[in-house]
């Protein structure tokens, strides 16, 4: 089976792994805020430093962390290229019609790429260090107030955790169907984009059918294990510990840091 990088849990025991998922979600939100508050490379450097701390405390191999970036590499380069060519500035190195490459353009593109990478790495750190179950538990707990307005919080959390649980199974299945169709002479590798998409239909239809069959069997299995959607207890109870307090301090320091840099140092572009 191919290694799925994004959204895969990396099972080790570490400081970050043992954090409360709610605190990790809060950290992600705070981090995103910090990235957008940081309007200079100094600000991003502070964010990168904090993220490096997180990676170090998580015991997730650095190579794996960088692998998460691969998925958005094309998007990053595309955005950077557009900005590089269209961003006007004072120090112009090259010009052709409306296109120009300037010092400011280069800096701004670099700034954008860096921001995107920090964002992606931070969110994959969340999935590397948090099991889907505890993540959905966290989301469920955060959304609990919505129960007051009759929002089916538990059902939503269950749907999410089953979807996450089914990802590897369905990936395996896709691979199997692809192999089966290849053996029957299907060609997924050549032809133009339209042809390739068309070649995928014989994969998608069996996949969809089997997903429905799986859903049907899973619902039987859940019912057989007394699932009725209400009056459930929870085995894993979320609890804040001293670790989460540490994270709270880190978040406070991070936000204060980037905010101060923004006010006193200002834009460096």
């Amino acid at each position: 089976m191919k290694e799925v990088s994004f959204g895969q849990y990396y099972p080790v025991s570490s400081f970050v792994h043992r954090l409360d998922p709610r605190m990790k979600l809060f950290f992600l939100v705070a981090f995103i805020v910090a990235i957008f508050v940081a309007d200079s490379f100094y600000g991003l450097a502070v964010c990168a430093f904090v993220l490096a701390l997180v990676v170090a405390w998580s015991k997730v191999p650095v190579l794996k962390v960088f692998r998460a970036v691969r998925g958005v590499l094309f998007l990053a380069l595309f955005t950077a290229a557009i900005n590089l060519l269209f961003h006007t500035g004072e120090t112009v190195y090259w010009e052709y019609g409306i296109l120009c490459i300037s010092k400011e353009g280069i800096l701004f593109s670099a700034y954008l790429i860096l921001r995107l990478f920090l964002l992606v790495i931070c969110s994959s750190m969340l999935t590397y260090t948090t099991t889907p179950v505890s993540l959905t538990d966290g989301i469920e707990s955060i959304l609990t107030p919505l129960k007051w307005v009759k929002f089916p919080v538990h059902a939503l959390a269950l749907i999410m955790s089953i979807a996450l649980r089914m990802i590897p199974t369905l990936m395996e299945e896709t691979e199997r169907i692809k192999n089966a169709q290849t053996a029957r002479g299907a060609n997924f590798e050549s032809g133009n984009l339209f042809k390739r998409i068309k070649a995928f239909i014989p994969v998608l239809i069996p996949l969809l059918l089997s997903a429905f069959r799986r859903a049907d069997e899973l619902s039987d299995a859940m019912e057989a294990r007394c699932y009725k959607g209400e009056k459930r207890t929870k085995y894993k109870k979320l609890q804040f510990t001293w670790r989460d307090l540490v994270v709270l301090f880190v978040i406070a320091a991070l936000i204060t840091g980037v905010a101060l840099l923004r006010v006193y140092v200002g834009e460096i572009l």
Partner: protein
Amino acid sequence: MHAIEFRDVDFAYGEGEFRIQKLNFSVEKGEFVAILGHNGSGKSTLARLSNGILLPDAGEIRVFGTLLDEKHLYDVRSRVGVVFQNPDNQTVASVVEDDIAFGAENVGLAREEIGKRIDFALSAVGMEAYRDATVARLSGGQKQRVAIAGVLALRPDVMILDESTAMLDPKGRREIMEVVQKLNRDEGVTVLLITHFVEEALLADRALVMSKGGIVMQGAPAEIFSRGDELLAYDLTLPRIGIIAKRLREGGMSVSDTLDVEKLAEEIAGCVS
């Protein structure tokens, strides 16, 4: 009082398409019963009827004397667990421990009790070392053992295995059968093993053969398998050991129709020397 009792049960998926017709049988507490049958014989429908995933159109099903109806659905389901065929379609959670907890959470047990149940279920299926493992990375046999543990966490009196070994390799199949035998012997769990592998039925106290929605043969496995031609009529074959003994007899060797490998080996040795 029977563990499970079917009385004149009818069930049809659609108008006139009977899957189960006038089915009568019972299973005693602590018994290990194998149900054999070819595809479409109604044996999986029987499993789904036994814990109320399907409700009968006519007749009644009783579980430890309790009538299985809408009102007693969850009482019955917590006493009768079902392990299904495909291990990938039974696990709800990504991590072994969380999946085993699912059933226990559904019936509203306290946290400490759920923890104890998980310990018990994991050790019963010999998967203690995999408590924090990701289900997707386990082998087929291991996944199916997790599925069994998930059912065991509800502490059922009866466990139904609906072709639970059909998708496994020989090693996985052996693992599951060992676990099932152990549960039946040590924990006193009543086992209803639905299968089309005749070899597995040899381990049971009693075997039932189903065809076209009814029970057509029943008795001790050895007795059932001594009626090879009849089995063939229901699209079932003898276990391999039985076929060997039969061929040897046809070839003129005087061996009995035993299904015990050791015994047959001794008899052959006796004939040869």
